């Protein structure tokens, strides 16, 4: 879908801006930008993605190859919304093993059914 063409009606549209000082115009510019960005920030705060989850696992000491496999499996099981890093850490705590060991067990296909959905 593309929008229709429109002639340059700047002189008509700008009327409400004409009287603003440069400083007021700057304030208006940034207020509009902040309003525009705000819902994008809210979405980012409340959602996650496979890449975010892999980046968490990288930070927890997994290799990129391991992180990819763990996140793919978690995606299949619809577990991404819990945070894959949290699931691995919780498994490690429950089994009293290290985070890398918990990851290795999951990579071998064990304990997925025990993870909180």
């Amino acid at each position, binding site marked *: 879908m593309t929008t*229709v063409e429109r002639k340059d009606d700047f002189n008509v549209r700008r009327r409400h801006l004409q009287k603003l000082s440069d400083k007021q115009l700057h304030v208006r510019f940034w207020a509009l930008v902040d309003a525009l960005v705000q819902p994008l*920030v809210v979405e980012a705060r409340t959602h996650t993605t496979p*890449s975010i989850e*892999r980046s968490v696992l990288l*930070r*927890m000491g997994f290799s990129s190859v391991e992180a990819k496999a763990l996140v793919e499996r978690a995606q299949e099981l619809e577990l*991404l919304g819990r945070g894959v*890093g949290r699931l691995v850490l919780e498994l490690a705590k429950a089994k009293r093993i290290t985070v890398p060991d918990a990851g290795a067990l999951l990579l071998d296909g064990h304990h997925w059914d025990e993870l909180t959905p």
Partner: protein
Amino acid sequence: MKLTIDQKLDIREVLQDLDQYRPRRRGWHWRTRLAEHRLGPFVYRDAASELANSVPLPSAHAFADIDPQCACVITTEIASGRFEDDLRRMRMAAWHGADHIMVIRTTGQSHIDGLIEGTPEGIGGIPVTRKQLRATRKALDAIEDEVGRPINFHSYVSGLAGPEMAVLFAEEGVNGAHQDPQYNVLYRDVNIHRSFVDAAEAKRVLSDAGLLQLDGAHNANATAKQAWKVTPELFVQHAINTAFSRAVGMPAGQIALSTVPPTAPPAPKLRLDLPYAVALRELFDGYRFRAQQNTRYIEADTREATVTHVLDTLLSRLTSADVQSTITPDEGRNIPWHYNNIAGVETARQTFMGLDGLDELIELKRDGPLGMQARELKERAVLFLEEILENGGYYAAVNAGQFVDSGYFPERKGDGIVRAPNAGDGAETVVARSAGYGAPVCSHFGNNIFARTSDKPCADYGGCTLCDPGKIRYIDELDPHDNVDARLAVPLAERDAGLLRPEVEQHGDGIVCVTLFVPAQPHAAEAAALAMAKRMGLDSPEVISRHVMHPAEGSVFEVKGVLDVAIPSADLSIAAREEPLSDAEIEAWVRPRHIGLVAATVGEDEHSVGLREILDIKHGGIERYGFQCHYLGTSVELERLLDVAVQTGSQAILISTIITHGDVHMRNMRGLSKLVKERGLRERLVLIAGGTQVNHELASECGLDAGFGRGSTGRDVASVIVRTLQSKQAMNDG
């Protein structure tokens, strides 16, 4: 790892023990501007410290070889496809003043949903991997030690693996990154939700790691049909990325706007580009500016590109630039050749040094067309924002094709880029975080149960990789065939064997470029140019630049081709060459001693030009050092030279001997030596000959102190006179 100036960078040493390598420094480095910097004969207003090792601008020889450095960071973009070749290019660029090395990623990396490992070869850039980052950062550590200035290493955090790439950059000491979710959406068709959710996480990681973030707004210049009309939207694109970054927690000082002057001559460039540049800096006061040079219109002509880039750099100086990015002048015709990276850097440096202190000389006329146009641009940008919100917000506006429309907003042409919210790469992969969502790591953005305690989020398991880099997992290679070791087998064997090939891009690629003028109509001339290149022995010749001088009189071409020749360096006879003394050294020794010399063209020989050029002050000859020159003219007898030398108490005789029939030049040189000895003056006089067929070996053989052929300068001759007199004096003293 330590570099030696006269040794090539050892790629084997770079690749050794990379699993153990840790970056020694984090975050971005700015140059320090020196208030009043005295250097050689000048005082600079906008300079930073010099380098420990560098190659000065070409004209520096006339100014005591000074090598002043501008106060802003200078970028060069590197994209050969092989990182092992890029490292040598980086070293050369650093010596010429670049301290921001931007590595372009291989085509398609944006669309890979995950990280790449190892060192596969890329196209139009390199696959950014941990190994490649480590090798590059390790080499840059050594290069920055060699030049004595920190070097910023930079690449891209875009595409489907943004958060992972950001973590990788933070872990591996990368200093700067492009990160702009709009770039993904508009130019890479990555799903809009995915792009922004990923971007928040990536930005948070980059922010905490101190990287400088560049946005992607400048790409609209390259995409829009009429780049100067997309300017109102550029303010909006810059602002969206800036405000989104601030909302995620990134400090203003780490946010840089990537901005390009949108036009090039014959457009009235300054009149169009300056109001835009001024308005941008006013609206975004407090943020950093990365001024990029224009690439949009460059095709084959490197001279034309250079002129545009000089004007771009002038715009930077007339407004501001924290980082001046350079474009290689050959970018329009091929993947940039390494020596053209240096050409681009030198264009910016030369312009900046020439414009030093500009603020003291001129100011912009804000009250006039400049101010009016700047104001109009800002108002158009505000109208653009109002329409986005009226359309239902950012996603709806992108879906309605509001971005990269070629109309001058509010004019619309209806040809904008349209991206539906549920389409694109990675669509349907964004998942809502549950109430118990957790990510037990540092630098994480958004809702997270582990962020609620006062402890670090990673405290439960002893720290994440950002706190304990020892936990980082290094993968060396995944592909046994496509890797750096396989690629290096032939080049390193040739290097070890001392074989030399010409190159422009990758080690020993054999590519050469020849310039030919062919006096015919364009099509015939081009066909002839290619045929000539083939006759020169070039494989796969290709015309990379054509420029009509006149439709009938002829055209000039640059033709590239492969010269499949490997020269064994051991077979080369390289004459030992002593560097001449500097101008200052020569003058300091000569002037107080009143050194006299007698000069003439000898025998029956009326040539005078060569000798006059060596002598005359007007031609940069040796008179300027304070020698007292007695020039006797042409066809002068040897005896007369000696008589005058005795009369004037001169210490040197210069003869020019051009004619060579019957080896008359040899007879003249031998005759001079014999005569001087007969008169018992050999100890007192320095004897020098010059001529087209004269060289040092021949002159020495004939009993003279030195001989000079084509291409010699007054400085070469003066230097030999001074050194010979100094050694005579030392012998007498001894």
